[in-house]
């Protein structure tokens, strides 16, 4: 039996008067890569960001419904949001390394979550290796992270997330600012991370969704129209809208 890692039930989300997500019900299985696809403005990123509570800082965002990590209610008043974000990591569209050195970009999260000081160097080395970045940066860990190339920066951002050993990694179009070679490296990285993490990724790239994901959710105007295995969504979609979108007729 596949274990459900992350789920949303009867999720409605609005910014002020404007409803962005309408009655979302979706379950993500452990150790799978799930792609969220759909035209711009359909609510993919909004859904993604509701799992690690990134909407907390927008005063006009209203979240209703149940979001769960395993059996933990993510919007429970007694749960600390920092703990949730440690367990559900996030990688953003544009690489956003901290204005610190490569090493400090990884040690930062470890320090704020009070990992034992003597373990930190090994944890950092391990995370950089897992993110295919170690060989490129091992001699210049003190270098400012902003001096790295865009693709390297994005792998650093993934390493920064991975080093905390989260259970889920959310990725919001992580390759949209990168060239094809860097994109290839990130995709390879995502495939290798799957064995340890559950990954939910927003992408506009249909080929990418087909290459990397186990399941695909197609969203349109704030609703999940179709959620099925990658093969079914692309080869045999059940909904007219999905067929038109993956066939490239709109979006």
């Amino acid at each position: 039996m596949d274990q459900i890692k992350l789920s949303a039930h009867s999720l409605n989300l609005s910014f002020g008067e404007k409803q962005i997500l309408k009655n979302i019900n979706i379950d993500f299985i452990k150790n799978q890569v799930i792609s969220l696809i759909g035209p711009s403005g359909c609510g993919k990123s909004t859904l993604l960001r509701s799992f690690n509570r990134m909407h907390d800082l927008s005063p006009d965002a209203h979240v209703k419904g149940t979001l769960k990590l395993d059996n933990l209610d993510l919007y429970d008043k007694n749960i600390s949001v920092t703990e949730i974000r440690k367990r559900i990591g996030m990688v953003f569209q544009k690489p956003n390394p901290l204005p610190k050195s490569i090493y400090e970009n990884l040690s930062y999260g470890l320090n704020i979550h009070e990992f034992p000081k003597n373990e930190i160097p090994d944890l950092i080395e391990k995370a950089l290796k897992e993110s295919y970045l170690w060989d490129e940066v091992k001699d210049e860990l003190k270098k400012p992270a902003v001096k790295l190339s865009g693709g390297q920066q994005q792998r650093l951002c993934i390493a920064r997330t991975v080093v905390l050993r989260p259970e889920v990694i959310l990725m919001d179009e992580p390759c949209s600012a990168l060239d094809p070679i860097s994109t290839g490296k990130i995709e390879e990285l995502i495939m290798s991370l799957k064995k340890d993490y559950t990954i939910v990724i927003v992408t506009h790239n249909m080929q990418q969704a087909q290459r990397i994901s186990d399941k695909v959710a197609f969203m349109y105007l704030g609703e999940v129209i179709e959620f099925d295995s990658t093969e079914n969504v692309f080869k045999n979609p059940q909904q007219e809208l999905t067929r038109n979108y993956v066939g490239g007729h709109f979006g």
Partner: protein
Amino acid sequence: MKKKLTHFLNWVLLVGSTCIVCLFLGIILFDIFSKGFSSVSWNFISQPPEQGMTKGGILPALIGTLWLTLITTLFAVPFGIGCAVYLNEYAKPSLLTNIIRASIRNLAGIPSIIYGLFGLALFVQGLRMGTSVLSAGLTLGLLSLPYIITTTEEALKRIPNSMREATLALGATQFETIKDVVLPKALPGILTGIILTLSRAAGETAPILFTGVAFYINGLTSSLNQEFMALPYHLYMLSTQHQSIQQVRPLAYGTAVVLIVLVFGLNLIAFYIRFKQRTQD
């Protein structure tokens, strides 16, 4: 042909106004430096005034101005940055926040003499600090607050949200995010604002007039409850209040040179910080 001519005339007009502004600045600087430069020497800045201020230097006024600027900094910088961080990072957009912002902007427009009277009422009399370098420094601090708040807020606004999201998504609290990422990244902008504000405050005369500046004191300012001499007031006094104005005129010009060099020096530091930041981005 006609269009070309109007273009040319417009150009002449704009360049002309720029030249006139620069010309006036040049004349002022030339006048002050040509008349004052000869009286500036090491002795001038390292000696107290002598013989009824007709001889000697300006050391007490220089020290007084430094004291004053130091107190202003210690008072205005922490409160100013704290207020700006609250407004930009924590305050939710509401009527109250808008009122606070508008009030701060209005504070910047209040004539400095009013700050002087307010300082007299609050610090000198109300809080019984007397006419002292502390009262005057706090008064200048009040005057500087709105500028520091506004420039700090501008610097914070320039930090993209993606920077804040980076640490928040790692599980940092909002306070950690501000302390570890937002403030360090905004620091050059904040420093520039602080320095420009202080250079302005150092040249103010009206606010210190009622709150502690003295015509002449024997010895140097050495404690917070003492009266003090300050460069701008010393200049005013030498050029209008002294009994033998003609005799002390070179000293007045010399004082002006020192004050201008001090203020320009601060501004140069601010420009350097801004230049360095721009080349880094």
